[in-house]
């Protein structure tokens, strides 16, 4: 017999209470992980942003276009490595509940700047040669069962009319943070029809993406771009891709912050759950701990028994919680409208924090009962009834 056997027997001495505690911790850890996953889904755009990319948009609002003519002027600024641009096409595919980004892009340069979209070269060659060809993310291909050569009819809203695109490329996301749900097609094709159907909007683009040589110069180059177009018909606002992505979040940031705070409050609640259980069980065993001390067991051994029990309870709970998090996140994602969060996955950090929190809670929850047990004199413990 080793002391560790007593430790394990103690965990389930009160089966119902032990199980309820473990389940309680499990539910809380799951809630924590789910909230963290939602929070990081919001931040996915920010995380995916590259340090060497600047976004130049209309100074008044993102919805106003910029002239295509700016492209060459931006390209001339020292430190600028490559300029590309995109327009927000939007439109309705199938119905209004299908969310994914649909962009008209400068196909000659866009995929150089967005190297995280991995397009097979042979598909890209075919794409380049066909005016209404499109490249879609692998998730979109899977979600709508689209194959190379399939037609995607889209009803325009930003650019009214019926549009038809042929899938000629399917890109794979390079990183876990890369959005696998974007659809991109030739700006030239858009421009062709705009010239005929909405001539007053010809030569407009949505925003510029500027790749720079040295991320350290981002502030200076941003200023220089904006200076170039100051006092013009369309002034620009240039910032890092990261700042640009963050500006999208500002409206939701209070909610995100609340969720973030809440997720850590939940960790606090776990502490109370386990702490409560440990205080109860240590109190019930006051007598028993006094007997162990009388037999000659030391503070270190009692620490092992009490902290060990507490840590086991919370680690079992965390393991259970993280175990159910994966199906829970999957279920949560299906409950959302399709593509609501382009990037939705449980980050390794979330799992790590969940485990670490379990361990920490286990240790902290043991402190109060441990203090009691260690400071109670043997004779008092032996007299204790109840």
């Amino acid at each position: 017999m080793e002391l560790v056997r007593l430790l394990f027997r103690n965990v389930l001495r009160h089966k119902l209470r032990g199980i309820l505690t473990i389940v309680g911790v499990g539910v809380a850890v799951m809630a924590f992980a789910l909230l963290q996953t939602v929070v990081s889904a919001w931040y996915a755009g920010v995380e995916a942003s590259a340090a060497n990319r600047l976004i130049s948009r209309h100074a008044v609002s993102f919805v106003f276009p910029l002239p295509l003519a700016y492209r060459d002027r931006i390209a001339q600024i020292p430190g600028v490595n490559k300029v590309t641009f995109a327009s927000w096409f939007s439109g309705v595919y199938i119905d209004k509940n299908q969310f994914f980004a649909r962009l008209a892009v400068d196909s000659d340069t866009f995929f150089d700047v967005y190297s995280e979209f991995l397009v097979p070269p042979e598909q890209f060659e075919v794409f380049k040669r066909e005016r209404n060809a499109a490249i879609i993310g692998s998730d979109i291909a899977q979600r709508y069962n689209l194959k190379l050569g399939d037609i995607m009819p889209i009803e325009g809203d930003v650019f009214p009319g019926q549009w038809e695109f042929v899938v000629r490329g399917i890109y794979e996301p390079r990183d876990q943070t890369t959005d696998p749900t974007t659809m991109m097609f030739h700006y030239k094709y858009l421009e062709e029809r705009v010239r005929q159907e909405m001539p007053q909007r010809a030569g407009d683009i949505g925003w510029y993406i500027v790749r720079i040589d040295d991320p350290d110069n981002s502030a200076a180059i941003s200023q220089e771009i904006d200076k170039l177009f100051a006092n013009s018909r369309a002034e620009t606002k240039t910032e890092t891709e990261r700042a640009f992505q963050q500006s999208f979040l500002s409206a939701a940031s209070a909610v995100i912050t609340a969720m973030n705070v809440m997720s850590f409050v939940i960790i606090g609640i776990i502490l109370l759950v386990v702490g409560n259980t440990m205080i109860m069980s240590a109190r019930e065993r006051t007598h028993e701990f006094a007997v162990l001390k009388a037999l000659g067991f030391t503070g270190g051994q009692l620490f092992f028994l009490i902290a060990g029990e507490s840590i086991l309870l919370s680690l079992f709970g965390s393991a259970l919680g993280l175990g159910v998090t994966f199906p829970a996140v999957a279920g949560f994602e299906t409950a959302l409208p399709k593509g609501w969060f382009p990037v939705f996955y449980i980050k390794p950090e979330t799992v790590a924090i969940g485990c670490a929190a379990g361990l920490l809670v286990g240790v902290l929850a043991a402190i109060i009962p441990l203090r009691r047990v260690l400071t109670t004199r043997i004779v008092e413990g032996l007299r204790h009834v109840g």
Partner: protein
Amino acid sequence: MVAPFIQVQEIYKSYQRDSLEIPVLRNINLEIAEGEFIAFMGPSGSGKTTLLNLIAGIDKPTSGKILIAGTDVTELNESELAVWRSRNVGFIFQFYNLIPVLTALENVELPLILTPLSKKERRAHAEMALAVVGLAERMHHYPRQLSGGQEQRVAIARAIATDPAILVADEPTGDLDKASAEEVLELMDRLNRELNKTILMVTHDPRAAERARSTRNLDKGELNN
């Protein structure tokens, strides 16, 4: 002349309750020879348990000395005392105090964890101790599956497993029926005679006291006769 095994000298013990000092033991002087079986009797509250606890090294006197085999246990610090107890004292309590989630065998093995014995040796010692108390067949039973008398015998097995020289028993038959009490007393008698254990027993049952070789009376914290 050899010094007595246990020497209690000038022991005073008082408890502090608020600002009041409550004397519990006064001027206790006592000598106990090795192999003695002594019973302490006296009315409830007379200080029997307190005296036993002091000798067993789980409580400290307000003043005075307790020498056991040459060691003044009142001078030892907490951790020295813990080691000393694990080597020298076996405890038998009124309510057995077995650990409910451990089997009889595991309960008896518990104090052996504190010894340098190997796992196999610990188990062998525990089985032997259970055989001595006549419960070898019940070693895999949990306390709740045993009668009160059997539980107390397991507790006695736990007390003798480490082979301590001293056994302290506080009302060991206080919770038992007559027949079980008789068995337990018989067992203690045997441990005293056959294994030469020095036994200190607190009781207020005169029949239990009769089994001891000598009896001392405590009254209001003072030792008579």
